[in-house]
């Protein structure tokens, strides 16, 4: 991370009006205001004419629902959902590749919708159902889209595969018989370097036939 913007200083003067909002401020403000239960020590600042709570900059307690289990962690508000999953919860299926919403390797489901876990803060993920690739297997059996990936050899090095599997599952949930246009819209946010796209196409076709 090479964030060369001015980093938000600790709001020592909590009610200070800020003339401009940096990217980091904006992330904090826009994402936290509505959804997150207020934790102790939260400060209020006036930003863009509104009073908003600011968490941190120290660690704050967070609670997550990942793959049907409850996890508690103490994290800085600046930690992304991806880093929280991987480094704090040791759920490493979602991969860190571009770390800025360009490649899709970190795709997870948030209330059943695919999101880039690298580009949302962990603190925003609270109170939502988070599903990672690890949860798609049931009773030790691969999900039909996973089996279709195996049958069609849709992974080589496999580093993009978890993101693709999750994105494909989300697409098939929405479009059981996806058209080429659906593929364009639903999968253009995932990138593979080894070139497994032919296998992925085959896997989607197989899973669609079998009604994944």
């Amino acid at each position, binding site marked *: *991370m*090479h964030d060369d913007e001015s980093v938000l200083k600790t709001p020592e003067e909590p009610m200070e009006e800020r003339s401009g909002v940096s990217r980091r401020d904006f992330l904090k403000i826009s994402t936290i205001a509505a959804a997150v239960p207020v934790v102790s020590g939260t400060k209020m600042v006036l930003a863009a004419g509104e009073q908003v709570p600011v968490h941190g900059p120290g660690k704050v307690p967070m609670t997550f629902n990942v793959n049907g289990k409850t996890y508690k962690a103490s994290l*800085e508000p*600046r*930690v992304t959902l991806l*880093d929280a999953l*991987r*480094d704090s919860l*040791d759920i*490493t*299926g*979602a*991969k*860190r*590749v*571009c*770390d*800025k919403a*360009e*490649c899709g*390797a970190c795709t997870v489901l948030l209330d059943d919708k695919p999101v880039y876990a690298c580009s949302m803060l962990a603190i925003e993920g609270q109170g939502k159902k988070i599903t*990672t*690739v*690890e949860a*798609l*297997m049931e009773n030790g059996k*691969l999900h039909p889209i*996973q089996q279709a*990936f*195996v*049958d069609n*050899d*849709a*992974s*080589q*090095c*496999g*580093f*993009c*595969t*978890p993101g693709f*599997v999750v994105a494909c599952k989300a697409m098939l949930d929405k479009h059981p018989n996806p058209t*080429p246009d659906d*593929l*364009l819209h639903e*999968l*253009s946010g*995932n*990138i*593979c*370097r*080894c*070139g*497994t*796209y*032919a*296998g*992925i*196409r085959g896997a989607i076709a197989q899973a669609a036939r079998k009604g994944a």
Partner: protein
Amino acid sequence: MPDYQWPDPAHRTLIGKRTSRVDSPDKVSGQARYTYDIKRPGMLYGKMVRSPYAHCKVLSIDISAAEKMPGVKAIEIVQKPGATIPWAGDEVVAVAAIDEATAEDAARAIQVKYQKLPHLVSDAEPPAGAGENQGPLSLDDLGDMLENQVPERQIVALIQEYGISFKPTEEDIKEAKDEGVPDSVIEAARTATVHPEAGTKTKSNYVKASVQSQGDVEKAFAEADAVAEGLYGAPVIVHCCMEAHGSTSEWTDPDHLFVHMSTQNVSGIAGQMAEPLKLPAANIRVHQDHVGGGFGSKFSPDRWGIVTAQLSKKADGKPVRMMLERDSELEVAGARPSAYARVKVGAKKDGTLVAWQSHSWGTGGPGGGGMPPIPYCFSIPNQHKEHTAIRNNIGPARAWRAPNHPQACVLTMSALDDLAAKLNMDPYEFFLKNLELTRLSKIYRDEFPLAAEMMGWKEKWHPRGQNISGNVARGVGLSLHTWGGRGHASDCDLSIHPDGSVDIKMGTQDIGTGTRTCIAVVAADALGLQATDIKLYIGDTLYPPSGGSGGSTTPGGVSSSTRRAVVDARDALFARVAPALSVQPDDLEARDGSVRVKSDTNRSLSWKEACSKIGATSITSHGHNDQAAAKNKPDLTNSGVGGVQMAEVAVDTETGIVKVTKMVAVQDCGLVIDPKMAESSVLGALIMGISYSLFEEKIMDPTTGRMLNADMEFYRLAGLNDIPELKVHMMTGPGYDERGVIGLGEPPVISSGAAISNAVANAIGVRVGVIPLTPAKVLAALNQKAGA
């Protein structure tokens, strides 16, 4: 004498049949663990302060503020004040802290002052006469040439002609041998004239790296019936592995290091870390289960890997993880050298090639690089070639899948295709006509008609620019390629246990090419089992060494060592089982999960029953494949494959957008172990080929000297929707199988650029000489044609 030979088709149970990748279930379920996923108890996070300038001197480094930050555990100065930095993103200071955010904060708190120096990041055509004669070669020059797989003979010739600027020590020579430097190069360096003064001389950015002639070029051109001239090229591109380079290192005690590293070279890493860490290689354990791509860029521990171990040492041996940021991954962790050429090529009326002349240039970063092998595949009788290497500050080059071949292929096949157009010949006929100038004409002759049939070439090919309807121009193009691919040195330990389980230990790695599957298929085939019955232990220096996965050497290496080990173990098992079936060991075979009498297959024991005859101690065997073919008796691997590719494109003449609408590949790789894996390798290569043909380029900013597109938005890789119908055919059967196993990773990525470029020329009637074939370049070419 055990019968190590590959079984004939009647006696193969799995070899040549479609087996699914054995580690697919782990990969699709998120269970596969990569280096990036390793979390060790008490692990610290490493970050690197990198140079913001392409060429500068480090003046001062102030770490005092960072040192005082809570949570910072170690700081290592990588390049001290006074050091000259040759490219942007080079490592200067490293820090380890309790979490990643703290490490980032600490890295930001480190103050480094630099003195900027003039830089060059362009690889534009050198000014006429700018090429300085090659002087004595430095160690860096040699390393650069070897990295780029400049042909052995060419390196030796340069050493003999110009000498070297350093006196190689016995230690240098030993190290070179360990790293697999060819004997002829070592011998040339050992006996070369040493010019120590040359090492201190400031070098020009332009070096005349090569001047070669054969035959009588002037006469041949004068007598040629048609001559085509053009400018062709391929820019610097990057590897962009999905898993960044990096490692986790920990000192398990003051004398032992445990390393998890993202690498293509598990068995070769410890030896490279030993000297800089002053630690015996035997005390370094390297482990890796899975690697998220390498493509030629992950053979070395790299400076950041050494530094990670040093940080760990400073932090009382605590594990330190340092994985590269994405921008650094693209800036410093791998680039393919560029190659451009002004080519003139001549032929007789009937298409027979007679003359080649090229003035080529390109950059491989600070070392400059060598001339790609042009003219590619075709040894045209009369040739004159000059190459100027550009030494600049774009960052270091690394081997990129099929080093130097895709560039050579673009330069050569584009020029030949232009010549065919000049002769009004169908390039299919033109290339066929000249196949006798290649070393693999028999293979290409088999492959050409198959590729044409798959593409529908006869129906689709029109003379240039004659298949345009509205604003859509359609065209087809073809190319051919070759690669070595002989198996590397590999050692395999195999055990058959009394309970019937079978395991294999080998210090190889599966870089996504299906190496696990290849080993399992070869072993299971001989034992009459399924691939998933073989328990594989790979990716660790605790296991017998096996070569790095580069140059398509892995399939030949691991399959040969496994075959020898499994045949010995199977024969030992037969010896123990024979008395129970009252036959001689030679009368037995292992098929379908049983050990049975060949002449009376009803007399059999299940695999488990048979193994119960082993007794208390497991059967163990060891198989070795030697890098030197002559030392393998019999030799189960081979070298030299041929492939042909054809592309069909649709070009929008208003927007300049090129769509590849179909591609076909016909490829040989000797005996195919698993056609499913083989086809995946070729499909992947075609996709990678489309990507570098249409999109990829490392774009440097001349002002700041930095890479402008060091991310995955502007360093564009092909996506799912850029990929058309792809057809692959693997050559098998007589003429192919008996050659033994040959690697497949590199060859199919070579032709794609030339085939697609030729298809675009066929579509729009004018050559876009330099890939990637971006809309801007296509429109510029169309405008030039319209103005002409």
